[in-house]
């Protein structure tokens, strides 16, 4: 997977396999993590339609006909850091990254958008889903 560029169709399909085969998601998705969220890498937005802790559909460039609860935004360089096998400090996890953006007003980190209540209701499953981007990107890992 490391040979596949982040955010390509092939990359997203492999990522979907990783999420849907993850044993922790089976446990902590609780069969209830069905909140759709988007990932925005630079100018490219992909909607992840979740169903019971699995990625049901990947929707590039979602429109007003689609529905989501929250999202994560960042420039490509920040996402490239996030998916490294050993990412640098502060871009190694979503809350870490968002904190440096939202509280410390720093550039170069990821930012959460949308319904905070839904984010915290599903934090662990959502967080695991994002962390699995690192697993997918590096052909394994924890």
């Amino acid at each position, binding site marked *: 997977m490391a040979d596949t560029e982040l955010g390509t169709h092939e990359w997203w399909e492999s990522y979907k396999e990783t999420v849907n*085969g993850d044993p922790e998601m089976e446990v*902590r998705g609780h069969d209830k993590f069905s909140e759709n969220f988007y990932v925005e890498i630079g100018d490219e937005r992909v909607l992840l339609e979740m169903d019971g802790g699995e990625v049901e559909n990947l929707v590039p460039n979602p429109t007003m006909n689609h529905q989501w609860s929250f999202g994560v935004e960042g420039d490509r360089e920040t996402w490239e850091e996030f998916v490294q096998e050993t990412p640098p400090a502060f871009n190694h996890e979503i809350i870490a990254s968002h904190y440096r953006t*939202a*509280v*410390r007003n720093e550039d170069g980190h990821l930012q959460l958008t949308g319904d905070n*209540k839904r984010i915290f*209701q599903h934090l662990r499953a959502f967080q695991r889903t994002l962390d699995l981007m690192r697993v997918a990107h590096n052909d394994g890992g924890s």
Partner: protein
Amino acid sequence: MPENYQSGDVEPISGSYVHTEVEGVDHRIYFEENGPEDGVPLLCQHTAGNNCQEWRHLLTDEAITEEFRVIAHDLPYHGKSVPPTSQKWWTEDYTMTAEKFTETLVNLADALELEDPIYMGSSMGGNIALELADWYPERFRALIGLECGAHSPGFYIDWLDHPEVNTTEVNAYSCWGLMAPQSPEQTRRETMYLYEQGATGVFKGDLYYYSVDHDYRDKLDQVNADECPLYIANGEYDYLTTPEDGRQTAEGIGDGATAIEFAEIGHFPMSEHPELFNAYITEVLADVTGDRDEELPDVLEPDDVGIELHQQGPAREKPAE
């Protein structure tokens, strides 16, 4: 670090309860200890919403407990320190303040008759080192503030105590990213497991002190580090109180304050990567006791203390096509 226990091995940690007053109310406080009775007392404070189990690997480090009497306690309302029996504590929110926190620590040291103890705490336990140095510098031999800063805003979050949120999970996993990803997964997961044991509202109540009440940005000149040495040791991956925050805090205090960066580790050093932390803190403790000849470096790296970082993992294979 004796991690290879076998069936029948009994760890040398003992647990006890001690009574002490806080704000005029009797509290039954649980603590664990290991080390010689006449060893240098090392009083260890857990992080917000957690308990003394965070220190279990320091408590069983033979090299450290040979010289130090390591004591780790549960603050009231945390772990085995149940709420006071004389109070209707369920009729009000639990809220930690700097005054209550310092009084608890000093009264605990008095109740245990600790002579010239070293204090060490992480996160909220690190920040309180500034208040202890300001208000009680005569009571301690030295103060070690892990993940310490003059101000740590933004973590007093309503969702951490909300009836429509699974706070057991959220209180833990809002902290997941405070650890370095290269710390061993088993100990990172255990740290979160400990967080999942906290009582409702206690983590958020602690964070009132951590993110609201504690603000020393304009008061650093009040800190008496020249009377009681203060060490500020912050992990590279701590996004709340960064190593740079630690350096600025130490510079603001001046004489007696030493900032040091712990590389490749995060906000829960003693529990997220015990092997690396114990090696790092050995260097700091040697400085406290005068057993170290050289000044502490600005940054301690794993190589400096002879620790080889674990590989990522265990590697998990992607599911078959």
